[in-house]
C-alpha cells in the first residue's frame, strides 16, 4: 500500500500508528475491560464476605477447607504468571517457538489449577456442602466458580494463541496479542490472590 495510506480504526494500532494516548486501542480496551472486571469480582467477593458465616445446617468453611491443598494449587497458578511473563518477553523478541513453549506451559499450569478446583468442589460436595445447602455454599461456589471460568477461558485463549501463531494466522501485532492475553492472565491471578486470602486464609 502507498505510503500515504490513511488507516482507520483498529487497523491503525495494528500498524503502530500514533494514538492520542500513546497506548494502542487494543491495550486501552483491555485495561478498561479489566477495570470493569474488578467491579464484577468486587460484587461477588462482597456477597461472599456477607454470607460466609451463614452456614445453616451445612458445614462451616473452616471445617472443610483443605488449606495445604489449595495453597499448592494457588502456587501453581502464581507460577503460571511467571511463565506468562516469559512468553511475553519471547514474543517481544520475535522468538515464536519459545513463545509457544511458554504459552503452552502457562496453559498447562492453568489447567492444573482448574483441575484442582474441580477436585476440591467434588470433595466439598462429598462432605455435604452443596450449592443449595447454605448461603455460604451458594456464595462460595459462585465466587470460586466464576474465577474458575475465567481461568478456563484464559487457558482456551492461551491454547488458541499457540495454534494461531503456529499456523501463522495471527491478525495484528503478534507480540501485542500475546501481551494482551498476558494482561488478562495476570489479572485472573491477582484476583485469585485476593480470593485465596479472603476466602481461605482469614478465618470466619
Amino acid at each position, binding site marked *: *500500500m*502507498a505510503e*500515504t*495510506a*490513511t*488507516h*482507520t*480504526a*483498529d*487497523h*491503525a*494500532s495494528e500498524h503502530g500508528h500514533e*494514538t*492520542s*494516548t500513546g*497506548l*494502542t*486501542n487494543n491495550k*486501552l*480496551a483491555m485495561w*478498561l*475491560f479489566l*477495570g*470493569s*472486571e*474488578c*467491579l*464484577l469480582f*468486587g*460484587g*461477588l467477593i462482597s*456477597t461472599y464476605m*456477607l*454470607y460466609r458465616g*451463614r452456614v*445453616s445446617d451445612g458445614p462451616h468453611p473452616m471445617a472443610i477447607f483443605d488449606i495445604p491443598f489449595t495453597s499448592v494449587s494457588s502456587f501453581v497458578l502464581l507460577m503460571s504468571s511467571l511463565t506468562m511473563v516469559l512468553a511475553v518477553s519471547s514474543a517481544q523478541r520475535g522468538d515464536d517457538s519459545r513463545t509457544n513453549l511458554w504459552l503452552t506451559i502457562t496453559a498447562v499450569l492453568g489447567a492444573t489449577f482448574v483441575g484442582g478446583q474441580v477436585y476440591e468442589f467434588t470433595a466439598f460436595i462429598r462432605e455435604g456442602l452443596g*450449592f*443449595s445447602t*447454605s*448461603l455460604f*455454599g*451458594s*456464595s462460595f461456589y*459462585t465466587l470460586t466458580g466464576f474465577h474458575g471460568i475465567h481461568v478456563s477461558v484464559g487457558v482456551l485463549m492461551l491454547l*488458541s494463541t499457540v495454534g*494461531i501463531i503456529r499456523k501463522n*494466522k495471527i*491478525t*495484528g501485532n503478534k507480540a501485542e496479542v500475546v501481551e494482551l492475553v498476558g494482561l488478562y492472565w495476570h489479572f485472573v491471578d491477582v484476583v485469585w490472590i485476593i480470593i485465596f486470602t479472603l476466602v481461605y486464609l482469614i478465618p470466619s
Partner: protein
Amino acid sequence: MAIIERPGTSTTPVVVTPQQTLGAVKRPVATKGWREWLFTVDHKKIGIMYGVVAMVFFIIGGVEALLIRLQLAMPDGQILSADKYNQMFTMHATTMVFLFAMPMAGAFANYFLPLQIGARDVAFPRINALSLWLLIIGGLVLNASWFLGGAADGGWFMYAPNSGPIFSPSHGVDFWVIGLQIAGVASLLGSINLIVTVLNMRAPGMSLMKMPVFTWMILVVQFLLVFSLPVITVALVLLMLQRSYGATFFDVSQGADPLLWQHLFWIFGHPEVYVLILPAFGIISEVLPTFARKPLFGYPFVVFSGASIGLVGFGVWAHHMFASGLGPVSVAVFSVATMAIAIPTGVKIFNWLLTMWGGKIWYTTAMNFAIGLVVLFTIGGLSGVTHSVAPSDTQQTDTYYIVAHFHYVLFGGMVFGLFSGFYYWWPKVFGKMLNEKLGAWNFWFMVIGMNMTFGPMHILGLQGQPRRMYVWTEARAGEGFFNLGFWNLVASIGSFILAVGVLFFLINVVITARSKQQAPLDPWDARTLEWLTTSPPKAHNFDRIPVVHHLDEFFHRKYEEDTATHTMKKVAEGEDLVRAEGDAADAHIHLPSPSYWPILLSIGVGLLGLGVVYGIPMMVIGFAITLFSAYGWVLEPSVAEEIDFEPSDNDGNTKEIAPLG
C-alpha cells in the same frame, strides 16, 4: 461499501475475491439491500439502526404506559388484571430505560462521536456491530416473555426476594434476567469501544478541552457504564442462579439479607440515572449555543460539572433505600451526598441560562425542546432535592410523588433532549430537514401532555396514592381539590395528549422521508466538526482529517474576529468549507470491512441465554455458535487484506470492492 476509496476522482470498480477465512466462509461484500445493513460495521449505519430499534421500543413502552393510564383513569379500572398490570409497569420501565433511552443515546453517540472528534470510525467497528446485535437480541428475549407465559412482574428494580419463584412463578423474571445480562454485555462492549475512540482517535490538535460537550458527556457516561454494569451483572447472575439453579442468595429462611439485592441494584441503578440524563445534557449543550448564536457559557464548568456528576453519582445510591432501615449514619451520609450532587447540576442549568442570556435566540423546534429540558428538568431536579431529605423521603417513598419526580427528569429532561437532538441533527443524518411547523405541534403537544400527565402526580403522591397499585377506589379518593379521581383523570388525558405529540413526530418523519427537498449543508450555522462534511456524510466521514485549532472548530473556520469592533464576522460559508475539504481529499482511505461474525456471535449468545430456561441442549448449541463465531472473528482481519484486492495499476485508479448483488 467502499473498501478502498479515493474521493474526488473517477473510479473503475474492480471485482475482487475476498480471501477465505476459516475454511469455507468468505467476507461479506454486498453493498446493496439488507445484507449491507446486517453485516455493516459502519458507525453511521449502526447508529441509524440503534435509533430505529430504540424508536420501536419507545412506541412499545409508550403503549404500555397508555394502558397503565387507561387502567387508572377511573376508579376500579377494568382494563388490566392485577397480574397484567404488574407486568405492564415492569416492562414499561424496563423497556424505556434499557431498550429506548440507552440505545437512543447510543444512536447519537455512535453516529456523532466519531464525527465530532474528526475520526473515520470507532476504535472497534466489529465490536460496535456486536453491541447493536446483542442489544437487539436482549430486547427480543425481554419482550418474548409476553408470548411465553407472561412478562416479568417485579417492578424495574426487581427487588429480591420478591422476585423469587414464590412471588413470580412465571418465566417472566427469568427472561428479564437473561435479556438484561445480554443487553448489559452490549452496553459494556459499547462503552469500552467509545472510551477508546475518544481517548485515542481524536483529530490532530483536538485536546480534551477542545472536545464538543456532547462528546465529553458521552465519555463520562461510558465510564459510568464500565464501572456500574458489572455490579448489576452480579445481581442478575445471583438472581438467575437462585431462580434456575437452586442457589439461596435471597432465601430469607436461610438467613439471607434482603438488602443485598437493593445495594447491588442501586450501586448500578443510580449511576444509571446519570447514564440516562447526561447524553441529553450533552445534546442541549450543542443546541443552545448554536441557536443562541453565542459560545457555550463557561465550557470548562459544564465539562467538569458533568464529570463530577458522574463521580458523585457513584456515592449516592442508598438514597433509594432510605425507607429500608439503613441506620442514621448511612442515611445522613447519603442525604448530604445527594444534596451535594445538586450543585454541579445547578451549575449546568445556570451555564445554559447564561448561554441564552443576551443571545439572538432562534426559536427552532430543536431550541424549543432544549429550553423545555432546562425548565422541566429543573422542576424534576427540585423535587429530587426534596427526596434527599430523608424524613421527607420516608413520606414520599413508593408514592406517585416519586413517579412525578423521575418522569420530570427522565421525560422532561432526557426525552426532550433526545427530541432536540432529532430536530438538530436530522439534516446531518438524512440530508433533509424535519418540518418545523409539524415540529411546533410536536413540541407543544408534548409539553402540555407531559405536564398534564406528570404534574398532577405530585398531588396524587403527596395525598398518599401509592405507585404500582392496580386500582384505586372512589371511597378513599378524598374531596375537593385533592380528589384522587379528578387528578388521575387529568393525568390519563394528559398521557394521550403526549402520545399525540409523539405521533406528530412520527408523521413528520414520514413526510420528511417522502419530501424531495434537500437540506443545506449548514442549516443552523453550527459550531462543531460533524458539519464539516457532506449531509449525509460519506462512508469515510471526512475527505481530509481536519486539524483542530479551536473549541468549536467549524465555527472558527467560518468566523473571524473583527479586531476593531470585537465582533465575529463571517468570512466563509459552510458549503465552501466542505467543498474545500473535498478538493484536498486524502489519497487512500482504508475503511473496516463488513463482517458476518458480530450478528452470528450475538445469535449464539442469545441461544446460550435462552438455554437457562429451555435446557442444556439449547445452551450447547448457543455455546457452539458463539465459539465458532469467536474463532471466525479472530481469524478475520478487520480491514480487508492486500490480497483481497486487484494489484494497483499504474494510472492510479481507485479500487473498490464491486457489489456482488
